[in-house]
């Protein structure tokens, strides 16, 4: 299995925030959800991958090449969709095509117009008159028109209404029919990833909490609900996070086997969602 993106000990220090030697990798043909709360370091990581900010340590390898050595060749094969539009708002999609197309060796006008039509974007309307969702779809059109093998998306669904979000996610799922394309998709809306992500990397306060296949993660974590008297201090420490009320507790465990052995049938065990995992990990114990 070829690795498309390989991050190793990536480090960036800002006053008050450090991206702390993070490592993860994405195999070819898969979607990785890159999740974490606001301020966790997702955008910093993506900017480091794209060389928009300078790293303080570590390596970024894309398509097996080091980004700092083969940046131009690598960027020929990367498509990017950011959380806001960075194309000239006064221009139409046609105008932007004429600006962007010459930079890519594999630019394909047919693909460009086909995707514009597929995404129902008017090619003679100025970008400034596009809705936020339309702008995101337009960025995706550009990313798809030069046969990008890796698409990097930084919070593409933030600020979109549910209809547009669903549409973007459906497009991504459809794209992945082509097994040559890989996607790194950062979001704090974890439900976006329930249907589409193959891998999840969870980052919090500049540290990778876990990076693995989504199914493996969801199998490993579980929500445990029980009455208050069952909860001991030892258990509180073993859970990832606990929410307690006068009626009982709800907790997240990362060791389901151990939890079952300890409580047996006295507790209710439910599947945890990515949102549960993120919430309990970030918030920890909460009364």
């Amino acid at each position, binding site marked *: 299995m070829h690795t498309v993106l390989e991050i190793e000990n990536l480090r960036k220090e800002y006053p008050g925030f450090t991206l702390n030697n993070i490592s993860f990798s994405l195999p070819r043909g898969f979607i990785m959800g890159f999740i974490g709360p606001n301020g966790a370091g997702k955008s910093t990581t993506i900017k480091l991958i794209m*060389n928009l*900010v300078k790293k303080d340590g570590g390596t970024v390898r894309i398509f097996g090449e080091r980004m700092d050595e083969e940046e131009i060749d690598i960027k020929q094969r990367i498509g*990017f969709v950011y959380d806001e539009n960075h194309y*000239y708002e006064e221009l139409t999609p046609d105008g932007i095509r004429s600006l962007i197309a010459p930079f890519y060796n594999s630019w394909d006008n047919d693909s460009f117009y086909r995707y514009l039509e597929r995404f129902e974007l008017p090619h003679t309307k100025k970008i400034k008159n596009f809705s936020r969702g339309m702008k995101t779809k337009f960025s995706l059109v550009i990313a798809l028109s030069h046969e990008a093998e890796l698409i990097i998306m930084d919070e593409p669904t933030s600020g979109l209404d549910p209809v547009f979000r669903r549409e973007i996610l459906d497009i991504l799922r459809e794209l992945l029919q082509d097994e040559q394309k890989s996607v790194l998709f950062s979001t704090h809306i974890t439900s976006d990833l329930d249907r589409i992500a193959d891998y999840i990397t969870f980052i919090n306060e500049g540290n990778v909490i876990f990076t693995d296949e989504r199914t493996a993660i969801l199998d490993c974590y579980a929500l445990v609900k029980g009455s208050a008297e069952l909860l001991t201090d030892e258990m509180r420490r073993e859970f990832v996070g606990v929410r307690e009320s006068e009626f009982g507790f709800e907790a997240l465990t990362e060791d389901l086997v151990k939890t079952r052995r300890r409580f047996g049938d006295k507790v209710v065990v439910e599947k945890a969602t990515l949102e549960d995992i993120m919430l309990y990990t970030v918030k920890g114990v909460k009364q």
Partner: protein
Amino acid sequence: MIHLVKKDLLIQRKSFLFLLFIGLFIFIIYNNPMFDAFIYIMGSLMIVYIFLITANSEDERNKCDIMLNSLPITRRDIVLAKYLTIPVYILISFVGFSILAAVFKLPFIPITPRFPNGIDILVTVLMVGLFVDIYLPLYFRFGVAALRLFQVIFLLAFFFIPNTLFEYAMANPDKPAVQFVQQLFTEQTIVVQTLVIFGLILIIFLISYFISVKIYRAKEF
């Protein structure tokens, strides 16, 4: 590189209207012998200024640095392209003004401006060169706000540098640099004078360009 230059023209098609306005302005308002020698220099300076500031403002308004730096181009290309747009703007202004001057030659138009000549172009290149060489490193460091900084620097330089240099030359007539300048303007032909001045402009351009590249390479978006 050429595509980046083309980009700066495509994003400001409306600026081409200024060619017409400024052309009419310099032909009509400055239609007297006192200003005749300067009309094309002033007009071209205004055009370069408008085109450059408009392109930079569009880049900044749309936060295009993030997009440009995600494309398969180097930061050096982005900087060099900005410098290369300047001769293109100068060319556009002179071609535009020449066409307009030709139109003014029609018999029923009472004003008949002269056509631009080599001196107009030389002086324009010199003045635009100095402006751009100071402005662009400031732009790459501070963005569009650099213009205000440039104006302050320009005003200070305008009031203090000639005076300071003159006083220095008066006080130190034996210094080689002072003698060189004196000889250049009293004993050399206009060709040598032009070559030396353009050599200096070239050196200043290279210094300005390398400073801009250094600044832009270190920038984080």
